[in-house]
């Protein structure tokens, strides 16, 4: 057997030995290299940032210890790194050899061979063998190949270990997330048997991971939800949009160990593994948030009721105050003194303003009090009626309202009338120097229409976007633009009662556009 073949066999035996750790294999390789190359020392050096760190060292004469660090500058290693291919010499210290190797003075190394170690695409460092004694003959091609081969194996092995570390870290991270997640995370296999049940799931369902493993998912679902969920998973499994993963959140009804059923929100992901499909459900108990939501809805309804009753009952005393201040004004203006006239004047103004506010509040709270019966409603007709109501204002302001064809939507005609009336009246009221031009457009997306009302009025600063929809909030003083500030909040309320959204876009001097969504009614 040639010495090369023998060397390869030895290399193979070392690297393939299952009982050896990587570091032991590394040292065995270094020792083997020293022996076969007839040199005293072998190193694996990591080179970065201008320094050289000895990762592993072995051989007959180890003058450098593992872990030691030295500057790269002026050493043979520096040269080897820059060369990017094996560098070698055998008689650097020999006064007869010429030229004398420049690093000999620094390291007293007479013989050296070093090959770059590359990990992935990164230059890791060098595999080096050296001796302070000169070597009898030059390195043969076989010897140089052997060093290159070792360097390749080390590079490959280091890369594999890095990938393993990364995987382990990611697994540990994943396991950590699984453990600390408050959400229940449950994986089931294709037979819908539970194969993973995290701590969050234990807390949510009351089962321990040990007792639930291998059980069908049905155990965790309320009876009513079982078949629906099974179908859902089956559909999901065979779904043609079978990307590797996909998730959609939906509400389901879960069942705890003690039999209690609870509302939950769950999303599911699908993963194709070598062992078949794996479904992972991330589930959140929404009992508390549902309760909070119901509570909020009730408290809102109560507030509305309160606002209605308050504004309604306030009308009676208000009528008294208003009537008698007016009676005072009627009978005694000019008959008392100037002060009295002034006082009466303020009282009358205040009462008038209060009356407006209470009427508006009543109007506002009524939108919430009405029982909704949303029916297909033609917006063309609503706008026509609105414009008829606004005829006088349109004449006074020389205003023109144009409109695209408008759809039939699901809604309450009375409320929609209020909505358009308020938005169009607003557009006419906040007009600029030019006569008002208002345009209504509608755009469909799916089952929803977005209706936009654009004007050429004074507009407003976008920083006030949040305020314009708040009840009784005004951007102008009452002398400039009278009104209570109810219009847009009423519009918002109507839209929200119709499960829509409303928003505004505006810039001072460049008009405003108010848009809202309504459900298609065609």
């Amino acid at each position, binding site marked *: 057997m040639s010495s090369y073949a023998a060397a390869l066999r030895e290399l193979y035996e070392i690297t393939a030995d299952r009982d050896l750790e990587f570091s032991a294999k590394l040292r065995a390789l270094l020792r083997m290299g020293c022996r076969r190359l007839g040199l005293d020392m072998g190193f694996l050096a990591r080179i970065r940032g201008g320094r050289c760190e000895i990762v592993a060292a072995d051989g007959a004469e180890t003058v450098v210890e593992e872990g030691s660090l030295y500057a790269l500058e002026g050493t043979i290693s520096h040269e080897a790194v820059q060369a990017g291919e094996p560098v070698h010499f055998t008689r650097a210290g020999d006064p007869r050899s010429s030229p004398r190797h420049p690093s000999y003075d620094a390291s007293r190394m007479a013989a050296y061979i070093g090959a770059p170690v590359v990990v992935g695409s990164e230059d890791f460092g060098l595999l080096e063998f050296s001796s302070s004694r000169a070597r009898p003959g030059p390195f043969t091609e076989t010897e140089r190949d052997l060093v290159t081969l070792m360097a390749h194996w080390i590079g490959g092995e280091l890369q594999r270990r890095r990938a393993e570390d990364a995987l382990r870290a990611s697994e540990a991270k994943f396991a950590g997330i699984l453990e600390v997640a408050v959400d229940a995370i449950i994986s089931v296999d294709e037979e819908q048997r539970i194969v993973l049940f995290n701590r969050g799931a234990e807390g949510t369902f009351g089962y321990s991971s040990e007792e639930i493993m291998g059980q069908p998912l049905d155990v965790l679902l309320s009876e009513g939800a079982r078949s629906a969920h099974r179908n859902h998973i089956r559909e999901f499994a065979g779904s043609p949009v079978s990307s590797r993963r996909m998730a959609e959140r939906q509400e389901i009804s879960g069942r705890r160990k003690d039999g209690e059923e609870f509302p939950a929100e769950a999303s599911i992901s699908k993963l194709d593994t070598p062992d078949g499909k794996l479904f992972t459900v991330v589930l959140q108990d929404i009992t508390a948030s549902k309760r909070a939501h119901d509570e909020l809805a009730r408290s809102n309804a109560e507030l509305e009721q309160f606002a209605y009753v308050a504004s309604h009952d306030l*009308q*009676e005393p208000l*009528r*008294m105050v*208003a*009537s*008698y201040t*007016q*009676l005072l004004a*009627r009978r005694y203006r000019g008959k008392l003194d100037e002060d009295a006239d002034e006082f009466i004047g303020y009282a009358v103004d205040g009462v008038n303003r209060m009356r407006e506010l209470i009427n508006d509040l009543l109007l506002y709270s009524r939108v919430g009090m009405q029982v909704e019966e949303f029916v297909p409603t033609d917006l063309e007709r609503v706008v026509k009626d609105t414009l008829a109501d606004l005829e006088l204002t349109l004449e006074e302001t020389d205003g023109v309202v144009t409109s695209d064809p408008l759809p039939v939507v699901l809604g309450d005609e009375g409320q929609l009338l209020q909505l358009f009336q308020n938005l169009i009246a607003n557009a006419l009221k906040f007009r600029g120097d030019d006569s008002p031009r208002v345009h209504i457009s509608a755009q469909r997306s799916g089952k929803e229409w977005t209706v936009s009302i654009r004007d050429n009025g004074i507009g407003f600063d976008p920083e006030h976007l949040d305020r314009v929809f708040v009840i009784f909030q005004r951007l102008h003083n009452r002398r400039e633009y009278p009104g209570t500030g109810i219009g847009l909040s009423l519009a918002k309320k109507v839209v929200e009662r119709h499960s829509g959204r409303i928003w505004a876009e505006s810039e001072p001097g460049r008009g405003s556009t108010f848009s809202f969504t309504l459900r298609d009614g065609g």
Partner: protein
Amino acid sequence: MDGIPVAARPIEILLVEDNPGDVRLTQEALKEGKVRNHLNVVWDGMAALAFLRREGEYEGAVRPDLILLDLNLPKKDGREVLEEVKGNPELRRLPVVVLTTSEAEQDILKAYDLQVNAYITKPVDLDQFIGVVRAIEDFWLTVVKLPSG
């Protein structure tokens, strides 16, 4: 035929109202009217029925030409008064005007079901209130021809 001649005697009006402020306002409004009138005031529904039936302290009460009826009253509310007046053969021809702050639709419908002659919401504005009282006066006492007796 023109309306009944009413110049001979003041028009008798029964006002059923528990709010003194409203009573006074009605008086003031009627004062500015052009028809001579006499306002009889009772404060609750029981008293209104006693007045109309000439019972107890109202033994000598006049038969009013017009009833102005508030809906929300103590003891017996306006709806009950209306029901009894319209169900009583002797009283049912009396014109009744419901004058109230309630704008609730069911109140309005109920009142018309009970054959109220007019349903009027009290306006917050004084001028409007005076206008309403005068319109009632004009309409029921000079324009509408009522069965006599």
